């Protein structure tokens, strides 16, 4: 039974599509039918859809030009809604049922576009025109309109519903391209025992041989490919990646590969981004065909000859009814024969060379296909699509046209030569130079780890004849279809002294579009060389950059988006906090409660209640992220003493010393406590945000600067849950728990630490206080944290013991004026700025940062210094407000670093860094936040319990 043809240009036989399976699809809201095996491009061509887009600048109608990723015109939106994909390359969109595709340019549509007016006024819009106008009154006057005209495709507005994956692979040999050459290279390496990865951007292996009817090692290519594919499948250590494009070559032979998954299946990633580490790389990437340059060489119906060939032999699509072929090299004659044999009318072959091999001459003669030697197209006609081509006969020196002839045709196959695909070679630093014989960039020297195997029918360097028509209006000879750049634009750039290839590129935008000049770079270099009268090899070339073809952002990101964008770290007692209404916020990855709101409470109300409870009775705080590091060894004390501004040598066992650590510039790095557990065994604490940094810091100095000190450092931050029990009732509550530690004040005073057992758990208990109240900072093994937490709450129930969050904790410490590193301090704050200058000065021995404290800048008396601020009740201080002294000459004299209200009185208090603050106690300053101005009094902290007696209870 004869199946209905899918489209007026579908041949009744030939091609590798399945004519028994039809696929409906829509383009610009019209319904068409294609076949299984079609791409969007082949199906559109089969259906006679010639115009698919409007060009970027002049809005000229454009049709499919190629059959590959170098496609400049067939960039279409595929899909709608959240799955809309802008600028999909039609030759790579595999046709699926009910696929929806749209042109991205042209208003109101691609068939009729008002923007074509720009084409009619083209002389105004030469390259660089926007540099010379739009100056008055300013760019904003014109920008909105120009932005609307630019851009190809619409960005989706909803989140991407698809998933992506990043994966890694290691191999000895990475072969890129599974044409005949690539298959052979992969097999050779695999048989030699190498781990091989073979990458092919098509859905099938085999490359051009799949459909061009060639013979390989005496077999039909399709049979040979099938057998080799089977062989590779069976070999261990061989990975085949189909629908995968090698897009980037980075240092140390690391390559990025972009894999498309098809058909889309629920639960499977839409694309994969592979990071491949290869021992060596084999480029079997073939070559990209180049166009000829002549007048109006951009009309729908003009296509690369190799593309027409693939549409014909692989997809069973005729390019038109009357086809003319024009070339400057040998590769086009096979197509002439194939078109004729498929029943398509071939008008002849126009060849700009003056001679062809005898075998070719004979073959064409036997098919009655006329060859016009020494001829080149000079112009075409057809308002919406190709209608005719004017061919000119070249003079002997190629500089003039002696006679012309116009032929009516609706398809023109052009072949201006082949450029070997060496993008990855260039990305890896391989050097290229223009070769005038082949009109292409060729490698000038081998690369240590990238082998080029570009052979077969698309050989490395096919010689060409003339490529560019010597006559005609250069303003209508296109070089770069994507950016609408013409030969006249190149001429203009040189005329204005934008001479280097990079200047030409940036001035005209040639080669700067998404195709990175795949079908324009070669011609550009030839034309520039001709105009400048120098050998093209001297021009150099613009830098080729990754990615080789555009890659979906989502694929590069992979799974590390959304909740996985940054890791979350949970406190050992997290489950309890979550169950009890804690408001949790992220602090350097740790999810920490900031307040525990009870019903009807706002965050501020909960914070005030929690703070008051601590002062009145007791509160419970989860301090587990506190950095904890053990330092052991005979030289542990000497080692640690070299980091703190405090003299540690007088430290007694069980006594806790609070200390500051500096960077070598003298700036405060961290603060924490040091305690001697036993001779040669110390435990230090750090701020939670710096736990990892301090550990790394200690290790760096140990290994690099003081390797002879006998010291071992162990980070134990996550090993211990740390729970602070703070308030006047703390001792009473803790005493109820079964423990081996004597909690009486004389046995366990403030700033000491005891080890023992609590609830039959090993425990380390500090008496240190961040709140200014009697505090036990209790450490137990992390897994036991929840048990201790609940036990304390139970023991404290009669006292109404409740947890407090970070907001209340910081509020309480603010009242005491305690330093919060990273809030009061920044990378310029030195000890003297926060009242620790004397301690640092009194220590005679060296420590990290000490020498810097004597630099002139760190000795100035007008530095920003830590002070307290108060003001009249009823107002609030805002963190980040700036301060100005009464007689100030500077724009700002400092800023508020922490602010809140006194838990007991509700009065506003703040800490601030103020210029020469220590001399300003008692004076008034102006406080400015935005436009709001108030006044405050400078005081010396703390604001509460100045004697500190409560901590010592």
């Amino acid at each position, binding site marked *: 039974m004869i199946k209905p043809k899918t489209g007026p240009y579908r041949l009744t036989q030939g091609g590798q599509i399945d004519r028994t399976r039809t696929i409906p699809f829509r383009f610009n809201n019209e319904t068409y039918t294609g076949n299984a095996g079609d791409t969007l491009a082949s199906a559109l061509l089969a259906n006679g859809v010639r115009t698919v887009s409007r060009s970027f600048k002049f809005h000229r109608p454009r049709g499919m030009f190629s059959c590959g990723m170098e496609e400049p015109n067939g960039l279409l939106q595929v899909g709608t809604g959240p799955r809309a994909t802008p600028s999909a390359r039609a030759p790579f969109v595999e046709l699926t049922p009910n696929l929806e595709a749209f042109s991205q340019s042209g208003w109101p549509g691609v068939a009729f576009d008002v923007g074509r007016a720009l084409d009619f006024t083209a002389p105004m819009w030469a390259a660089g025109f926007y*540099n010379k106008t739009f*100056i008055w009154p300013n760019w904003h006057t014109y920008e909105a309109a120009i932005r609307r005209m*630019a851009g190809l495709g619409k960005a989706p507005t909803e989140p991407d519903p698809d998933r992506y994956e990043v994966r890694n692979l290691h191999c000895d040999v990475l072969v890129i391209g599974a044409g005949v050459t690539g298959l052979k290279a992969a097999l050779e390496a695999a048989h030699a025992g190498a781990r091989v990865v073979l990458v092919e951007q098509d859905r099938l292996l085999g490359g051009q041989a799949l459909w061009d009817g060639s013979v390989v090692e005496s077999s039909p290519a399709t049979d040979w490919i099938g057998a080799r594919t089977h062989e590779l499948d069976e070999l261990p250590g061989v990975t085949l990646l189909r629908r995968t494009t090698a897009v980037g070559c980075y240092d140390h032979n690391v390559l990025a590969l972009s894999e498309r998954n098809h058909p889309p299946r629920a639960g499977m990633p839409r694309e994969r981004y592979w990071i491949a580490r290869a021992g060596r790389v084999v480029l079997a990437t073939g070559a990209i065909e180049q166009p000829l340059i002549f007048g109006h060489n951009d009309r729908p119906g003009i296509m690369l000859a190799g593309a027409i060939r693939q549409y014909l032999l692989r997809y069973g699509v005729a390019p038109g009814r009357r086809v003319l072929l024009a070339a400057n090299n040998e590769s086009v004659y096979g197509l002439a024969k194939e078109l004729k044999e498929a029943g398509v009318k071939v008008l002849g072959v126009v060849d700009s060379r003056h001679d062809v091999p005898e075998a070719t001459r004979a073959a064409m003669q036997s098919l009655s296909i006329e060859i016009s030697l020494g001829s080149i197209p000079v112009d075409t006609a057809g308002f919406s699509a190709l209608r005719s081509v004017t061919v000119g006969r070249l003079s002997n020196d190629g500089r003039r046209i002696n006679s012309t002839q116009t032929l009516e045709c609706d398809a023109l196959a052009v072949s201006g030569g082949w450029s070997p695909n060496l993008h990855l070679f260039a990305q890896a630093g391989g050097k290229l130079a223009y070769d005038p014989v082949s009109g292409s960039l060729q490698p000038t020297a081998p690369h240590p780890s990238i082998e080029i195997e570009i052979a077969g029918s698309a050989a490395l360097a096919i010689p060409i004849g003339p490529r560019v028509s010597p006559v005609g209006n250069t303003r209508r000879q296109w070089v770069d279809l994507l950016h609408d750049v013409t030969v006249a634009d190149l001429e203009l750039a040189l005329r204005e002294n934008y001479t*280097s290839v990079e200047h030409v590129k940036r*001035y005209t935008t040639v080669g700067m579009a*998404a195709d990175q000049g795949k079908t324009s770079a070669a011609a550009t270099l030839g034309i520039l060389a001709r105009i400048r009268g120098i050998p093209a090899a001297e021009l150099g070339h613009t830098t080729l950059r990754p990615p080789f073809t555009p890659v979906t952002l989502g694929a*590069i990101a992979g799974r590390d*988006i959304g909740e996985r964008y940054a890791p979350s770290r949970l406190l050992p007692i997290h489950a309890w906090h979550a169950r009890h209404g804690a408001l949790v916020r992220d602090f350097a990855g740790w999810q920490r409660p900031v307040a525990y709101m009870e019903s009807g409470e706002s965050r501020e109300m909960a914070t005030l209640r929690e703070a008051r409870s601590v002062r009145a009775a007791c509160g419970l705080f989860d301090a587990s992220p506190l950095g904890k590091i053990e330092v052991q060894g005979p030289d542990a004390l000497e080692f640690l003493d070299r980091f703190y501004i405090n003299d540690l040598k007088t430290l007694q066992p069980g006594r806790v010393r609070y200390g500051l650590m500096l960077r070598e510039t003298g700036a405060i790095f961290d603060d924490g406590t040091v305690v001697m557990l036993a001779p040669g065994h110390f435990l230090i604490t750090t701020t939670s945000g710096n736990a990892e940094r301090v550990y790394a810091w200690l290790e760096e100095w140990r290994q690099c600067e003081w390797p002879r000190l006998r010291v071992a450092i162990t980070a134990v931050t996550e090993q211990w849950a740390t729970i602070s029990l703070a308030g006047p009732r703390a001792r009473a509550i803790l005493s109820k728990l079964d423990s081996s530690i004597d909690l009486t004040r004389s046995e366990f005073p403030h700033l000491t630490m005891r080890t023992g057992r609590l609830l039959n758990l090993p425990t380390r208990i500090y008496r240190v206080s961040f709140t200014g109240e009697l505090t036990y900072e209790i450490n137990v093994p992390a897994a036991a944290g929840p048990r201790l937490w609940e036990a304390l709450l139970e023991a404290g129930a009669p006292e109404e013991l409740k947890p407090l969050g970070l907001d209340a904790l910081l509020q309480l410490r603010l009242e005491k004026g305690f330093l919060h590193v990273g809030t009061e301090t920044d990378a310029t704050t030195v000890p003297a700025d926060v009242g620790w200058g004397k301690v640092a000065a009194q220590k005679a021995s060296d420590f990290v940062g000490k020498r810097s404290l004597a630099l002139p800048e760190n000795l100035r008396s007008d530095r920003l210094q830590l002070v307290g601020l108060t003001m009249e009740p009823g107002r609030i201080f805002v963190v*980040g407000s700036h301060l100005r002294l009464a007689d100030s000459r500077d724009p700002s004299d400092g800023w508020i670093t922490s602010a809140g209200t006194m838990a007991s009185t509700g009065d506003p208090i703040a800490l601030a860094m103020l210029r020469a603050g220590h001399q300003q106690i008692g004076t008034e300053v102006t406080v400015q936040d935005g436009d709001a101005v108030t006044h405050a009094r400078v005081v010396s902290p703390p604001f509460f319990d100045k004697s500190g007696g409560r901590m010592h209870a």
Partner: protein
Amino acid sequence: MRYSVWTLLGNAITGQQNWPAAWREGTLRRRYDVIVIGGGGHGLATAYYLAKNHGLRSIAVLERGWIGGGNSGRNTQVVRSNYFCSASSAFYDQSLKLYEELGRELNFNVMLSQRGLVWLAHSEHELEVSRRWCNAIRMNGVDSEMLTPEQIKHVVPPINLRGRLPIAGGFLQRRAGICRHDAVVWGYARAASALGVDIVQNCEVLGFDIVHGRVCGVRTSQGPVQADKIVMNVAGYSSHLARLAGLRLPITTMALQAMVTEPVKPVLDIVVVSASVHAYVSQSDRGEIVIGAGADAYNSYAQRGGLPQLRATIQAVLELFPSFSRLKLMRQWAGRVDVTPDTSPIMGLTPVDGLFVNCGWGTGGYKAIPAGGTTMAHTIATGRPHPLIAGFGLDRFRTGALINEDAAAGVAH
């Protein structure tokens, strides 16, 4: 020839035949009053202002490659003056004010789009830091205002307020925006050339002639040239050039990456910056989403970036703009940035008499081009640092008087 819609029209009629060279290809003479080493934005601007503001006529700009081929041609085109320290603020705002007039001054459309820039805060602590910073900018007399998350959503519709690191707010500079980098380079080159400056490309400086601590010329790939005043502004080569003059600079050169997506219709009308979710994002007038990354964190002159930084940056962009996931990365590249210990530039005199330096711009030299030009021109012409750059001298590293932008603004250390 003046650029205007009339000369455009005239040339349209005559087939573009009458456009003159944008700048003269200078022939290297053997002696100049001033030699400017480096044909990027700073060098060309300096040469222009030496001619325009100080009347000098014997000036050469020596460029080892093609003008604008360094960082001037590779940056993400952001201009802003929202700096924390008073010294920085004064300098960069002067630069932005010059940008505001630049197109008219140079008769070259630099496409300054003052579309605004919003700097995001992703936690309450970051918001406090932002408020400190925003107020600092205002106290310095420059425009800045705090924004709530809702206000941010209003000006950046595609932004995701509730990602893994939710947006707590931010601050806006309305006068900030983007400006076309090639146009700035070419505009200054054309104007300088018209005032007699010799712009010499493909001319590499190979050494200095220094006698008794005073510079008297350079040796180049095109022969020796004498001059009593020489300025080095060669981002990416500063250490190398300084070493030729016997100087050691506090500079580490790193690769700074940038990338663009395929062009799409307008979707982002403002520049968005996040320090902690690290990326700069804007949309060019051609429609590409332009993305600036952080530097690859080790010494590099390779002028290309690595995969880890690329991926981290794209993850950051999708954290801020999840709807951009289906857009495609079109091109990535990198510059060579000279990073100083305090992320502030080094401008002014050197220990060698007559030798001036302008370097250390790190990731932020593009916005500084006009003020870099005027202040260095003043410094070279008078022999004394311009008041705006007095704090940025090389000697600040001896006294510890660093101008630490990041630190003062509270960025995590």
